[in-house]
C-alpha cells in the first residue's frame, strides 16, 4: 500500500516537474547549458593541473545538485505551502512524508538524467574524463542530493512568503557555487573566502565528484569530505524537523 502510494505520488511529482518550465530550466537545463558554454570557452585550458572540461564537468554536476535539491526543492515547497497545497494534502489520507519523499525522489530522477546528459556531452564534445568507479560516483550523487534536500527543506522554515522565496534561496546558493569552486579554480581567492569555502557543503561534494572524475578515486579516498557532507545533511534534517511548516506563514 505504502509502496503503491509512493509510486503514485512520484509519478505525479515527475509530471509536475517537467510541466513547470521555471523548474525545468533553472535546475535541469541550466547546468547543461553552462557546461556547453564554458566547455567551449575553457574546455581545453588547464585548471589546477586538470583539463578544463573535466574540472567543469564536476563543477556543473555539483551546481546542478545544489540548484535542484536545494534551490528548486525549497522554492517549490514554499510555493506549495503558501498556496495552501501542503495543508490540503495533510487533510487527505496520504501520509505527508510520502509527499515530501516523492518530491525528493523526483529530484533524484532529474539529477540522474541531468548527470547522464552532462557526462555524455562533456565526454563527446569536450573530451572530458569520466568517473573511474560508477558505484562510488553514484553514492556521491546520492549523499550530495540527500544533504542538499535536507538543507533545502530546512531553509523553507526561514522563508516567510512565496514572493521572497526565490530571492532568498538564490542569494544563498548562487554565491556558494562560486566560493566552492564550481565554476573556476579557488586558488586565487582571498584567504578568508578560502576559509569559508572549507566549511561549505558544496566544496566537499565537489572534491568527492572531482576525485571520481579527475583521478578515478572513490569515496574511501575522501572520508573527511564524505563525513562533512553527511554532517551538513544531518544539520539540515534537524533544522527541518524544527522549522518546517505545513501551513501558510504569510497571512
Amino acid at each position: 500500500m505504502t509502496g503503491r502510494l509512493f509510486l503514485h505520488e512520484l509519478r505525479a511529482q515527475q509530471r509536475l516537474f517537467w510541466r513547470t518550465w521555471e523548474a525545468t530550466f533553472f535546475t535541469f537545463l541550466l547546468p547543461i547549458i553552462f557546461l556547453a558554454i564554458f566547455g567551449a570557452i575553457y574546455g581545453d585550458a588547464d585548471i589546477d593541473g586538470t583539463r578544463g572540461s573535466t574540472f567543469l564537468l564536476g563543477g556543473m554536476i555539483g551546481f546542478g545538485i545544489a540548484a535542484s535539491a536545494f534551490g528548486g526543492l525549497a522554492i517549490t515547497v514554499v510555493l506549495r505551502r503558501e498556496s495552501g497545497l501542503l495543508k490540503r494534502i495533510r487533510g487527505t489520507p496520504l501520509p505527508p512524508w510520502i509527499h515530501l519523499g516523492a518530491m525528493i525522489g523526483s529530484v533524484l530522477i532529474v539529477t540522474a538524467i541531468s548527470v547522464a546528459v552532462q557526462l555524455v556531452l562533456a565526454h563527446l564534445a569536450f573530451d572530458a574524463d569520466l568517473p573511474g568507479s560508477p558505484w562510488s560516483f553514484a553514492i556521491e550523487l546520492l549523499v550530495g542530493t540527500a544533504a542538499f534536500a535536507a538543507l533545502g527543506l530546512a531553509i523553507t522554515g526561514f522563508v516567510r512568503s512565496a514572493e521572497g522565496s526565490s530571492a532568498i534561496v538564490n542569494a544563498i546558493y548562487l554565491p556558494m557555487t562560486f566560493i566552492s569552486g564550481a565554476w573556476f579554480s579557488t586558488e586565487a581567492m582571498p584567504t578568508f573566502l578560502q576559509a569559508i569555502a572549507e566549511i561549505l557543503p558544496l566544496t566537499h561534494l565537489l572534491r568527492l565528484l572531482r576525485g571520481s572524475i579527475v583521478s578515478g578515486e572513490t569515496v574511501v579516498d575522501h572520508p573527511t569530505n564524505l563525513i562533512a557532507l553527511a554532517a551538513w545533511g544531518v544539520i539540515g534534517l534537524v533544522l527541518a524537523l524544527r522549522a518546517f511548516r505545513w501551513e501558510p506563514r504569510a497571512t
Partner: protein
Amino acid sequence: MRAIEVRGLHKSYGSRKVLHGLDLKIESGEIFALLGPNGAGKTTTIEILEGYRDRDSGEVQVLGEDPATAGSELRARIGIVLQSSAVYPQLSVVEILKLFAGYYTSPRDIEQVLALVGLSDRRNARVRTLSGGQKRRIDLGLALVGNPELIFMDEPTTGFDPEARHQAWDTIRGLRDLGATILLTTHYLEEAHQLSDRLAILHEGVIAAMGTPEGLLAASGAVKITYQRDGELVVMRTDEPTRVLHELTTQALADGVELEGLEVRRPSLEELFLDVVGADE
C-alpha cells in the same frame, strides 16, 4: 451515530480567547450551517474538527474518533473544502482528480465527481486556465473524490455569483441525498436559510442559538408590524400579532384613517442574526 459531538471546547491564541465552552451535536445525514460574525471562531472550530488545530480542552468526536489523535483512517472518511483554493495549476481537471483519488482506498468514480461539480466539459483544461469559480469547484471535487461520509466546507461559495451559488447549493443538497453529512460555515444568511437542515450562530466563543431555520424564526417570536401614521414610521414587535393587529385596525377604522404601508412579517434570519450578535456592536 452522531457525525460530530463537541462538548466544552476551549481554544485560545495566546491571551485571546476564541472558543470558551462550545457545545455542538451534528446528526448523520444533515446539512448543518455554522454562522457567526468575522472572528467569531468559525474557522477555528472547523479546523479543530478537521484535525488541523489542537484544542486547549473539551471533548471532540468526529465519526466516533478524536481528530487530534486520529490517523489517515479518519482522513479517508472525511472531505475538506478549505477557505482558500489550493490546487496544482499545471495539471488538468481530470488529472488532479485522479491524483487525489489515488490517495483513497475506495474513491468515488471520477465521472461522477466531474458531473457533481459541473466540470465534465472542462475535464481536460489545465487548472491554471480556469476561472476562480471553476477552481473553487475543483476544491469541492477534491473534497468529494474520496467518497467521504462527512464533508467540511469553510465558506464554500464566497465570491460566487448568484447563479453559481444556486448551482453549488444543488450540488451540496445532492451530496446529502447521497448520504453524506455536511458541516459548512457561511456568512451568507440566505445560504444558511435555504440550504441547512439546522444551523447554529457562533458568538463570543459559544453557540448563541441553534435549531432549524424555521424553528429559530418561530422561537424568536416577535412579529414585526410596520405602518405610517401622520408621515411617521411606526414599528411594533409583538408575540400576539392577531390581537395587536385587530386592535390597530379597529382603531384606524373608527378614526376613519388608512394605515399607510401596513406590513406584517416575521423577522428575517438576518434580523435574528443581528439580534443575537448585535448587542455589543
